[in-house]
């Protein structure tokens, strides 16, 4: 079953076209890595899928589980099971992780016609997922991302993903800012939360090292706003060894 179907997607930021005919299909059960040089449009792709204001789709379509994703508001996309892991997670002073995530989870559950979780049920779930990412529960009681290091923010993103339990995750450079130990923890977290026959991941990364832990089924190269090549995990190894210019030549 295809979860995400992107067809001939064109998108601009301001007046500048960034995505220029991007086509990509991700079936359930697949972890699909997107690699590409700086400025290729990787983050634009993530932001367009998340529905960030300021990113204008000028042509093409995106279908998510058979529905027109682009017609949905960001919070509706989340309730449909899409999770966007931010390259730069946002600090929200004055709002605790616990309050934020409980309201977010219950808003999603309500949109899906499910019962809300009680405070106790939520804390149990949060503790479980924080443990998976080796994050202290005390950190979840603090304000969202405020005072977190770069690596802690990325780990917190994965705790959020674990709690919200999406069907599809778009992870935008989740490995940036992580040291080697944190990279293993985050990679193992992604595997544990998302490796499933009825889930899928679009994993945007610059480096092979995350792919050593989260083994992708497919690797695509994004350059100049389009997918220029798709292959198996060996494509990422070739990129690491030879560089984009050589592989794309």
């Amino acid at each position, binding site marked *: 079953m295809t979860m995400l179907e992107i067809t001939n997607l064109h998108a601009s930021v301001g007046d500048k076209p960034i995505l220029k005919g991007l086509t990509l299909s991700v079936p359930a059960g697949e972890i699909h890595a997107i690699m590409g040089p700086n400025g290729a449009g990787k983050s634009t792709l993530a932001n367009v899928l*998340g*529905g*960030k*204001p300021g990113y204008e789709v000028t042509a093409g379509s995106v279908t998510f589980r058979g529905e027109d994703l682009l017609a949905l*508001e*960001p*919070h509706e*996309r*989340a*309730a449909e099971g899409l999770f*966007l892991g*931010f390259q730069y*997670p*946002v*600090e*929200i*002073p*004055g*709002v605790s992780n616990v*309050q*934020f*995530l409980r*309201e*977010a*989870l219950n*808003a*999603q559950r309500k*949109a899906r016609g499910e019962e809300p979780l009680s405070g106790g049920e939520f804390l149990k779930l949060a503790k479980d997922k924080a443990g998976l990412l080796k994050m202290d529960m005390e950190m979840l009681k603090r304000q969202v991302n405020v005072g977190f290091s770069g690596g802690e923010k990325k780990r917190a993103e994965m705790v*959020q993903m674990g709690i*919200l339990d999406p069907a599809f995750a778009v992870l935008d450079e989740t490995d940036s800012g992580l040291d080697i130990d944190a990279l293993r923890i985050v990679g193992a977290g992604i595997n544990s939360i998302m490796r499933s026959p009825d889930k899928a991941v679009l994993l945007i990364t610059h480096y092979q090292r995350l792919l050593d832990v989260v083994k992708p089924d497919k690797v695509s190269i994004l350059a100049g706003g389009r997918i220029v090549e798709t292959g198996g995990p060996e494509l990422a190894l070739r990129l690491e060894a030879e560089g984009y210019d050589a592989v794309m030549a």
Partner: protein
Amino acid sequence: MDGVARLGAGALDHWREITVPAGETFRACHVVGSDAPQVSRMRVTIEEGARYDLFVTNAGSDYTRIEIEVRLAKGAHFEFGGVTIGGAGVTREFVTQVVHAEPEATSNQTIRAVHWAGATGNFLGEIKVARHAQKTDAAQDFKGLLLEAGASANAVPQLEIFADDVKCAHGATVGALDEAARFYMMARGLDPATAQRLLVQAFIGDAFVALEDEAEREILLDAALAALEGAKL
């Protein structure tokens, strides 16, 4: 000053007098504002080593002005947390005059203003430090959050300092809602109204941080957030 003009004769003559006896602590929490113009004035004398904590949500749907005159004796403290919130094109304001008449007194004022639909939030804060009131420590912090163009938030700090060994800090900023934070919250599943409510709650929460009683804090916050219903998203 249309709102003032519509006030009945004598409405401006009344002052509520409060004295906090030496060494004691008084606390007051008020939700003010209705659908008629209102001016409330209070004069507070805080005696030696005493403390007065005042927290106000100013959320009327018509002109609402709160005036507070405070006189601090030696080592006294005045704590003020105030929120103005609302739309409907009217003005809500706090006017404070804090007189540090004796040495070693402290005061801390935290004001948050959230407005939309052509409304205005004002804070006129005067601090006077007498010549011999050394070791005075006075602070004012004002932040305005405008949910749409056409609303305004104004702070007018006025410091009159005659002593030389004092600390007087004041800050004022006005901005719009953090769009990056709003998108982040929506990407996690919160609808626009809930995301805005959480961000506004966090913003005005600063004004009530010093209020330790959680039930009272909730009453003030709930009154403010109730005023947010129907605000521009």
